């Protein structure tokens, strides 16, 4: 994790902006939160699902559900 992160992700400064150090702390906590989730073991069921899809077993289940893709 890059700890020399700059404030490039900040929105425009304004009068009500919180303490930059507090914002940095939020950023680090967010990264820690997310990193732990990403590092969690991948449930085997997803690997199996993709293997089944590739094998063509589940093609019928996957059809006709593309409406939500914009």
């Amino acid at each position, binding site marked *: 994790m890059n700890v020399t992160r700059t404030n490039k992700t900040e*929105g425009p400064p304004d009068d009500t902006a*919180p303490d930059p150090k507090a*914002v940095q702390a939020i950023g680090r906590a967010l990264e820690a*939160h997310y990193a732990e989730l990403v590092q969690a073991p991948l449930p085997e*069921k997803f690997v199996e699902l993709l293997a089944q899809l590739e094998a063509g077993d589940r093609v019928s289940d996957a059809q006709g559900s*593309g409406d939500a893709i914009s």
Partner: protein
Amino acid sequence: MPSARFKDELLAEIKNLRAFAISLSGSVTLADDLVQESLLRAWSNSEKFQPGTSLRAWLFTILRNIYYSNYRKRAREVQDSDGFYARRLTVPGDQESHLDLEDFRQALTLLPAEQREVLTLIGASGLSYEEAAAICEVGIGTIKSRLSRARSKLVELLKLEETSDLPVERRVRRAG
């Protein structure tokens, strides 16, 4: 039929997709259902993915649409019923860290979903403002303002501006 390469690329994105789903829904159980549906939909719509664009952003768009269409109400009912956020997590390697992940995650669940997702997309998933704007179907200005409001709200919820013996950076140094 999607290519084997597409499958491998999907496989490589699942952990990130799942992390986004957990952050968005606040529940591992719901997140896993969301990821499964998203993978099925991505597979059956693989021809709509434009090579050279971000597969991560595309998958997040799919998952987010499924969440808001079918899961948002359910999420309020079952949030944290699986106890994921109830675990007391220690942040290793730094004795000075007092902003623990449980507190942070609880605060995160109190944000409106549209602020939480922007915070996650920009602050953790490594997506650009442009990608986040496309995923959320709003302008970049809206993304920035949601991000700013999310941060202010978290600072308030976590009382990071409370007066203390220690300056903020010592109290919360290196939560990660």
